[in-house]
């Protein structure tokens, strides 16, 4: 499927910011270990501290490198009766969600997404929940409307 739509390009910034937030969390744990070692003399914290610090840096580098890759291959498509999500190139994954099966839709936005005026969309079916990392509010609204329309129409193969 090459025809789908990319996520809005602002999502790259969101991913970058969240990469830094993850970095900060890992680093905070690492620093906590270091402080414990320094002031409380808990010697056993030496290797965990190094480990967390290493994880922080490696995680940051990889996430930042992967941002363009993720962006390039993450596509979605809204058809009349399905939502199609595709991601990855090496590990390709494509999901089609029949809209008639959707149970509820949740739009959510944390501070980072809010700053970029994007919304995360969670589409829940009876078996799984699929998330689209960020959409423009108009698109999210359109998706929501479409889902609601079909959900009201389709009664036959109801759960």
């Amino acid at each position, binding site marked *: 499927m090459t025809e789908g739509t990319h996520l809005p390009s602002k999502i790259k910034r969101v991913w970058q910011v969240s990469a830094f937030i993850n970095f900060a969390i890992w680093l905070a744990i690492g620093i906590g270990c270091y402080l414990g070692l320094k002031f409380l003399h808990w010697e056993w914290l030496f290797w965990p501290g190094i480990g967390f610090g290493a994880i922080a840096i490696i995680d940051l580098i990889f996430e930042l490198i992967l941002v363009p890759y993720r962006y390039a291959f993450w596509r979605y498509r809204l058809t009349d009766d399905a939502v199609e999500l595709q991601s990855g190139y090496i590990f390709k994954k494509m999901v089609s969600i029949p809209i008639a099966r959707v*149970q509820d839709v949740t739009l959510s936005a944390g501070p980072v997404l809010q700053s970029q005026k994007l919304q995360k969309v969670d589409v829940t*079916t009876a078996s799984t929940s699929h998330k689209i990392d960020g959409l423009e509010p108009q698109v999210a609204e359109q998706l929501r409307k479409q889902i609601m329309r079909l959900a009201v129409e389709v009664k036959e193969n109801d759960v």
Partner: protein
Amino acid sequence: MTSEAPKKHLNAFSLLYYAYKAVLNWGVFAIIVLPAQRTHFLAALVTLIFLIIAFSLLKFFFFTYQISDEMLTINSGIFVKRHTHIPYGRIQTVQRSQWFFLKPFQLEQLKIETAGHESHRPEVVFPVVAESVREAIEQKRLALGKADQKSPTAVQGITPTKATPIQSTAVRQEYQINPHDLNIFALTSFGILPLMGILAAIYGKIQEYIPQQFLNTITKEIVSQSILIISVAVVLIVIIAIAGSYLSLVQKYYQFTLTSTGDQLRTYQGLLQRKSVTIPINRIQALRIKQNVLRQWAKLATIQALAASSAGDDDKGNDMMILPVIKSHDTFDRLKPFINWVPTHFVQLNKIPGKTGFILSVTPC
């Protein structure tokens, strides 16, 4: 948006609910932190109380709901804003529970569930809302259902029985548990076993806290009677456990009522906390009839409805009770008026002759 319904807040009583939840959540934290702060104890306490109040207020302020024509929308979240949209047609069960002290205010807790896979908790929880909210939702749902039923019959015109409007407000069938059955039900529960464990643990803890010296003097005096003491304690624990489990079950299923209104089943139960669950009949995925060993001897059965949500008992396997207790032999006769697709008799399990018969006959076919 096609129809923008007004955003409404919960009842102000939810503030108390949020505060209560916050106290529960942060209580452990407080217990750890507060005693260490001997110098700033008061300051810490005040900060904590202030935090709880602020948190409750914010949560209350950001929780709004909209009842529009096609769907229910819930907006919530302090930092992460969430908007959940649920079409009325997707609602599986509606659960209400009302503590006795909320009854005069006509307030209740409302939980709405869909078949969404995150089934451990309901999709929507209204901690405290006016009873009218549920009525409004129910009405919207019924209106939607009716509009939907009309269209196919108008086109086909073959099935005249379907075309007759269902009297959805009139009660068609009703069943109320009789006190005698409830007594037996409560007495044959195995709930006493865990309760006994808890009581024994409490007893052990109490013993730990009694000062050793006091204990020593006492034991010296009664060392000869220790067997008596222990047996009295055991008997006491058993009696309290039985009474406790009996009372809690009677409280829970007090005046259990099952009504069927048109296409919905509804249960009412409870003394202190009145609970009610509503489920459309065509959303019932399966019926389960079960008996524990004691109830097999008493020839009593329990009937549960399995839905694609997690309505019903929080603690007992998440299934909705339809008839907590019923005589085994008229199980199906009782069920028939409520659910028209129940089987008419139990499946007979045949014993397989031969040496391996015992093992094979245990597995039901």
